[in-house]
């Protein structure tokens, strides 16, 4: 498999995915959308990690392990984030990130 698809191709896909996530995080007003964008960024990195592991250093499991860590951390972050969005919705009656702007200056 490593011969059929060059590493560069995988990296480009991951990079593209990262940029899509970045764009999503920057352009969405909905806080859930922003969080989804961030999740996409993290998953793009997972593709990178696994690809590097598979193509470059298959003897050591660093890349794989790290991908697992990232997934776990992303899950924790999503849990806290979603809880927070619910809390904000309860008191602000909105999930629009731009409406939550009382702190500034």
């Amino acid at each position: 498999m490593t011969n059929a698809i060059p590493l560069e191709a995988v990296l480009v896909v991951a990079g593209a995915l990262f940029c899509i996530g970045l764009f999503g995080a920057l352009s969405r007003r909905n806080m859930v959308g922003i969080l989804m964008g961030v999740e996409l960024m993290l998953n793009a990195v997972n593709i990178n990690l696994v690809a590097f592991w598979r193509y470059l250093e298959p003897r050591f499991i660093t890349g794989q392990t790290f991908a697992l860590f990232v997934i776990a951390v992303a899950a924790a972050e999503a849990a806290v984030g979603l809880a927070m969005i619910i809390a904000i919705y309860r008191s602000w009656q909105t999930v629009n990130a731009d409406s939550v702007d009382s702190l500034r200056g």
Partner: protein
Amino acid sequence: MAYLNWLIWLIPLLPLLGFLLNVFVVRRERPAGLLASGMVLGAFVVAVVAVIGLAGLPAESRRIMSTGWQWISTGAFQVPFGIMLDPLTAVMVLLVTGVGALIHIYSIGYMHGDPRVVRYFAYLNLFITMMLFLVMGNNLLILFLGWEGVGLCSFLLIGYWFERRSAAEAAVKAFVVNRIGDAAFILAMLAIFASFGTLNFYDVEIGGVIQPGFLERIPEILGRTVGPSWQPIAVATGISFLLLIGATGKSAQFPLFVWLPDAMAGPTPVSALIHAATMVTAGVYMMARTESLFQESLATQSWVLWIGALTALIAGTAAVAQWDIKRVLAYSTVSQLGFMVAACGMGAYVAAIFHLLTHGLFKALLFLGSGSVIHGTHDTQDMRRMGGLRTAMPTTFWTYLVGAAALAGIVPLAGFWSKDEILAHALSHGNWPQLIILFLTSLLTAFYMGRQVALVFYGEQRDHSYHAHESGRVMTVPLLILAVGAALGGLMNLPFSIPGGHWLSDWLNPVLHEEPGEFNLALALLATAGAVGMGYLGWWVYTRNAARVKVGGKDPAYRYTGDIWDGMEEAWYLDAAYNRFVVAPFRALGGFLARVFDPQGIDGLVMGIGRFFTWVGGGVRGLQSGYVRTYALVFTVGVLLVLGFVLIFTR
């Protein structure tokens, strides 16, 4: 003389104790004043004992070093928390504690009934402590501790009557202007440490190890340069120039003198202590202490000389045209400091210190006298509302007359001898332009003092809304003591080869390595004649024309000089120029941007330069829109910049 090692610690620690007690324990006016005065008086007594002990040593070993503990100790970087007593420090300590004690006692009367007087005495004691650390520190870091400390106390004391808006503004102005000098001072310290690896003035032996002192290692940096190859700067020039900027801030020299006249918003004893006798002399002391460094840079020395001479003239002319009794003295202080700085620039450090000492005496006398006048006329400061006070306040009048004559340089009072020594040095070093400038300034000095004496004490009282009265004994006794000092201070350093004649020169010789100056009879006669003549002229003009002086009116001399007089009154518009070219543009931009970015209302204290930075800060805060997506966008831009730099420009 082992006892001196611990005795000298008492000198700064007694006022510190007074400060702590006044902050944390004392709550009532009377004990506060007595405690504060007693502590400073105690410090003075200790200082006298210590100096007598010092004088008992042979001349070349008159340097007591005492280290409290090793302040900083990290490998090569060693700074002891140490103080010292050598001839130069000794005279400064005596001046600070002696004049300080008198001013403390005077304050008991002057500040009587003030609601926050305990705090006043606490600040005053802290100030004395800091000033003592400044002059006693055996390294630059302690000197800087005192340097910042006196700046801070001065800030607190100028703004002491903070209900008056001008006082609060003057306090901030003083602090901001001083801060410019302080920044240069810090840079000078960094440069000295980088060049010499030490901040000690002299070699200190601690625990058998000798820590080097940079003043004894000046030859190491000779010939070394910094800066770009097309414009190399000698290290000695760089360091001494930074120190000079520091001194111009603290000693109120051109172009940073603008804070001192405004500082008169503080209580009058504060003006006497801080803005005449002690704090402002810190710059001169510092230049005298690091004299061997300054001497290695001709470039800096000529800057010092010119700055001093120009300051003397500018401030001298400004003093002529003031109406406020204290502002006359304030500009006069700036002018006399210019004399001292110019003396430093000529390499006549003994003359500078001599003038510093005599000036400390008679200027303190004049300020306290003016305070007595202000006190006796119920807070009148405008000389147009005074007149004829010599009958109502005889003690104040006679002592004031002594001070004024001493400042004007009338023989044989203190000011004559010290000023003459500076002029004689200018002559013997062939500094003709500066000699002429300084000579003219000394004529102006006599003139404005004659004018002031005439306006305040002669003629008829022009404003009868108050009943003038003499001040109490607690205020007049310090005046009398200072008057004796102002009259006899010249005995310290008579330019004659009689026993004890060059006492100050001989005493300072181990530190400043300077031979006594020559006495030039012709110059002395000329200066005396000029001083007497101009002093009389000033007195005569303003007693003859006393009837023309009206409250809120123009000066009689205005007829002859016209707009020039206005220029003098405004100190040649330096303040206005700062306002116009520095403050106003920033303020305009700030106002514009304040509307755009809507800050939460800017504090009234924010002025001038502060406004400018506030404006830039407003830009920072404008970006702080509250939208999280904006933040993310800024973040992304930052990412692009960093990655772009790393990947493209470092290729």
